[in-house]
């Protein structure tokens, strides 16, 4: 046997900061550092139409499914626990109860298998996975999910937040509007809004467009969209006497909020002099958003990078990947410090693995 050949490094990552429980296993090549996804398993807690997911029920879901999902991830990867280098888990940000339930499970695995623990920032997980999958070296990042809306650029070993939503996150705005319309949360409210929007577009309803520099806000838009939905349900017409449907509402909402996101992203790109943009987070799956961002980037002579739902939607593999990157620089989270935190800003993380 060739004893000089270095072993590949393998990490298992556990994610549960919102309603998705994800466990994934990644390997980094010892020579090239090239990541390989060995497995990526997810189980989602779906609440009934008209409702959102509550922390208590979501945590209960994660506890109930953790063992099943973990076993599946190991089986799919064909990896034995003894081959793992470390166990990575989401330290935050996210909802307290679900975060804690997954952290407890990750700690248990670390003790059971005698492995190091690595606490990971969820947002940094998204960014690193997006970079790895798309090959975008140093893009401006738009991170859009149910809980976050951030425009991020890397500088001096931190992911710096250039712009963000000043009130609710864009995904939250879409999710809550799906609740207003009482459409299904399966597979995701945002997905169902996207499908409805494809059927709309005869009219563009006027919604308040709220951009402040590289920041934006969505609660005013949601309020207005809710009002218009109520008018529609009551059989009334729009402010200009136009008739409109659910689909037109979804279309108008998407056109407005995505235009805002593209605008703040473009402003950040101009500001840092970049023409690459990477979209991560659950809302990043939206093809209309990808299309709009692509058109903007093309106008600037650049391009957009995006991933599909396997990597956009919360998952365990991104936690494994970002955790392993940190672990390779010597970072680990001692058991007694392996807590979670609901607030954990992207720019708090020292990105030692990048120059």
């Amino acid at each position, binding site marked *: 046997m060739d004893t000089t050949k270095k072993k590949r490094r393998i990490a298992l990552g556990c994610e549960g900061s919102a309603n998705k429980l994800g466990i994934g296993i990644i390997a980094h090549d010892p020579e090239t550092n090239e990541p390989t996804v060995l497995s990526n398993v997810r189980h989602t807690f779906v609440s009934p139409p008209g409702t959102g997911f509550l922390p208590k029920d979501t945590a209960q879901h994660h506890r109930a499914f953790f063992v099943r999902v973990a076993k599946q991830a190991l089986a799919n990867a064909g990896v034995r626990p003894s081959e793992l280098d470390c166990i990575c888990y989401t330290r935050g940000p996210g909802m307290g109860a679900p975060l804690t339930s997954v952290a407890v499970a990750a700690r248990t695995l670390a003790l059971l298998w005698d492995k190091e623990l690595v606490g990971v920032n969820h947002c940094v997980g998204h960014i690193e996975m997006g970079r790895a999958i798309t090959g975008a070296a140093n893009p401006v990042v738009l991170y859009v999910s149910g809980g976050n809306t951030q425009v991020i650029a890397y*500088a001096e070993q931190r992911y710096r937040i250039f712009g963000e939503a000043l009130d609710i996150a864009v995904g939250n705005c879409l999710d809550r509007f799906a609740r207003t319309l009482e459409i299904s949360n399966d597979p995701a409210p945002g997905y169902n809004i996207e499908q409805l929007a494809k059927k709309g577009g005869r009219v*563009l309803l006027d919604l308040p467009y709220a951009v*402040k520099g590289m920041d934006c806000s969505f609660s005013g838009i949601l309020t207005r969209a809710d009002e218009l939905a109520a008018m529609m349900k009551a059989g009334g017409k729009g402010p200009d006497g136009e008739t409109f449907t659910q689909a037109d509402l979804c279309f108008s909402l998407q056109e407005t909020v995505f235009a805002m996101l593209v605008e703040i992203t473009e*402003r950040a790109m101009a500001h840092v002099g970049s*023409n690459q943009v990477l979209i991560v987070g659950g809302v990043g799956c939206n093809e209309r958003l990808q*299309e709009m961002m692509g058109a903007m980037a093309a106008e*600037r002579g650049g391009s957009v990078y995006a991933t599909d739902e396997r990597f956009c939607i919360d998952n365990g593999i991104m936690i494994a990947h970002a955790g392993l990157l940190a672990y390779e620089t010597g970072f680990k989270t001692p058991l007694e410090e392996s807590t979670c935190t609901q607030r954990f800003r992207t720019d708090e993380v020292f990105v030692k693995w990048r120059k």
Partner: protein
Amino acid sequence: MAAHAAPVEFALPQVLTYPAPTPPILVAQGAEGRLYKTTYITPSLPCALKYRSPKQYRHPILDARLTKARIQAEAKVLDRCCREGVPVPAVYALDATAGWLAMEWVDGVPVRQGINVWLGDRPEDDAISDAEVADETPLVDLMKRIGDAVGALHRTGVIHGDLTTSNMMLLPWADGQSNGASSEDGEKKKAVGGDVILIDFGLATQSVTDEDRAVDLYVLERAFASTHPRAERLFTHVLEAYKQTFKKAPSVIRKLEDVRMRGRKKSMLG
């Protein structure tokens, strides 16, 4: 700003295809507009023509609405600032539907560039410490002039909406004020010298509420921290000068605390 590195050839706005004493120069492809230097409007004097080209990514109705509203708003606000003595370029002409606005040419560089020259090759992980602040007098003075300019702006009831160090220019002082010791020192000092001129009022609104003013400051504070992390500590001088210039500043600064808190709280959900 990727000013001169614009990789694509842009179609000129129609107004710049008409005969003029000198050909238009594309100065910057900014956030959402293109900035040309041209002598079309005033043959003897260069002017800055800001053109908001239609955005292909945006729904055409939304795009037309935003473009028109923003050119109009920008012109209106510049005009008001000019009249009230806030340092901004004067408006020469506009066509809001066509998406352009011509204004006074500021013969200087963005503040961002000046600060970066000053910080020079300071090691990346070497933030300015308290002990060093004394050596940073020229930069501190610039911070104060920024605070003055923003204070004057808010006093007139205008919210900028996109305060960054790219959206301020440094109009160099006449020579003689740059009595530098060594020439390299002199160059650096010169880089952060000059009057601060506020530009880019495309997102400006009129408001006198503490909340709107505080958000304006918050936008600047964050842009500053992410653009010049090594000089982050000096931002307090902006707020100090703002207080000196603007008598309602104390309640705005108190509000700024709330806005910052809100900003941090938003990172709650993953």
